[in-house]
């Protein structure tokens, strides 16, 4: 039985796998970084299918948005394409990377196929889905955490004013 969920999952999963392979194989680091953005977006889609709305949104805003912009800035400022390939300079690191990759891979294989699920995992999963919805987060923000929420607004305002002051072009 093929449901929409399975189709969507296959699409997102294929995108995620293909892009993550492309991230490590591309020579140009900027192209790698752009594929990483795509990878994050695909992962966000998978989170959404798992009903983890908040994590999906945060994945897009924080990882695919803010952190990748930072990545790109650093790459463009440092201009690593003029430098030698990292692995050519440190050949031993290639083996280290390989070992870490293999260990993580088999760990995941083990937990997915051979690990024992704890008996309460279904209850906990339901609970965590409840917490992760937009409704419950919105309710929390506007009731219990109203004051911290408003205070965070003033924090961002101060940061914005500061950035403008420090970046002003003319200093008369």
């Amino acid at each position, binding site marked *: 039985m093929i449901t929409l969920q399975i189709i969507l999952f296959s699409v997102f999963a294929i995108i995620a796998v293909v892009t993550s392979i492309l991230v490590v194989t591309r020579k140009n680091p900027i192209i790698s970084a752009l594929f990483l953005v795509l990878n994050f977006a695909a992962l966000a889609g998978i989170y959404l299918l798992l009903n983890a709305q908040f994590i999906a949104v945060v994945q897009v805003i924080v990882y695919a948005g803010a952190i990748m912009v930072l990545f790109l800035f650093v790459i463009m400022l440092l201009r690593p394409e003029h430098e030698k390939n990292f692995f050519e300079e440190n050949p031993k690191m290639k083996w280290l990377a390989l070992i870490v990759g293999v260990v993580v891979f088999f760990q995941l294989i083990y937990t997915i196929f051979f690990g024992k699920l704890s008996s309460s995992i279904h209850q906990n999963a339901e609970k965590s889905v409840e917490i992760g919805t937009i409704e419950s987060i919105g309710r929390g923000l506007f009731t219990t955490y109203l004051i*911290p929420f408003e205070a965070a607004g003033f924090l961002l305002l*101060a940061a914005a*004013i500061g950035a403008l002051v420090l970046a002003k072009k003319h200093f008369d």
Partner: protein
Amino acid sequence: MNEIFMITPLLIISGGILLSLIVEMFYKKSEIILPWLSIAIFISAAYYSLLTAYREGVVFNSMLAVGGLVHIFYFIFNFGAAIVVLLSIDHIKKVGIYFGEFYILMQSAVLGMMFLSGAKDLVMVFIGLEQMSVCFYILTGFNRKRSSSNEAALKYFLLGAFASGFVVYGMALIYGAVGSLSIPSVSFYLINQSPSIIFIVGLLLFIIGFSFKIAAVPFHMWVPDVYQGAPTTVTAFMSTGGKAAAFSALLVVLVPVFSNLAKNNFIPLLSVLAVITMLYGSIVAIAQIDLKRMLAYSSIAHAGYMIIGLAAGNQNGVTGIVFYLAAYTFMNLGAFGVISMVEAKDNSHVDLQSYTGLAAKYPLLAAMLTIFMFALAGIPPFAGFFGKYFVFISAIEANLTWLAIIGVISSAISAYFYLRVVVVMYFKSTDSPIDVEPSYYALLGIFISALLVLVMGLFPNSIIQLISFFVG
């Protein structure tokens, strides 16, 4: 609806920030009216805080505490900030950072301090800490043309972000152990069971993070460079309001935690922190020629004295810290006020040499600086003496007499470099004493600080009674 009126001081400041932004946007010469608007906002918030201090309570789902000690802190921050504005009016024009945003950022910093001292939940502690710190990073680097100012801002930002990381990590571990971030539930957790190792590590990380903010040794590395590089009135603000706010947050979190710990394992830790902080600050300050740097090390030493009160952890300790913070705020503001006035356009004339023979040419200014130096050294009848006195008494009550003795030794050492400034001003003469641009606003601010230092030194009992009324 009633809850909204309980936090009126906070509303005044936050409304003030928005109003100042609008003024800044539409009025070309906002630099001229913004200082007065800021003073009005700060004074009304300070006045209202004192007026409603008797109305104690916890509001907004136990996020914020109002009334009592919290409002005493509100008063210290706001009144101190008003004095800083007075000191800044002419100073920022002189050093070429004449922008309206300066005052808006100051208001934001005060708002952050108020969140810190009023917090009843670790989330509020974190947001207040960040709000205050972000404003300070920017104010430190406000003078973009000076490389030392830029360097100081970057250093402060990187180390400050690092310290915030420690604080957040500590909070996360505390949440893991307790299951809640609200401070009452943390103390409730401690009543029922002995703290788990996760909780202890979390609290340790929290203390380490805040040690950065209060400039305790060995987390003090940033202080001399940042205090020296920042515009002088910003340094005044940072070393008084910033320190008072960080201490108030430590009191808010640690006092309920310590009072519910069956066996307080943190006393030796805090005692050691206090000893090395006092001695390091006092001894290294002797070697300083630059007055701003000297006061930076002196501020490290003063943090050490206040940690004594924290280690004692009793009611007198808390009262002593609050009195000490108030006294320290006004004497340090005054001292930095005089320095900011003597400082020249190009940020020179902050070294000891420049003060040679100042008393002959500007007797009033020299007399003011003498009052503040005596007060900082802890010589009666000025406020500094009673601050130290109350803190040391609390240590003796808590069977930490050795800590009080080391405190007395350290303040005897520190008297040397404070009095050296007085000696240079009065007993050395020079053919070419420096010129000081008079600033009547700054002079008014210095006068008010001197008056408060004197009043707090002459009538310490009534102020202590007021504070202990709210502590108890």
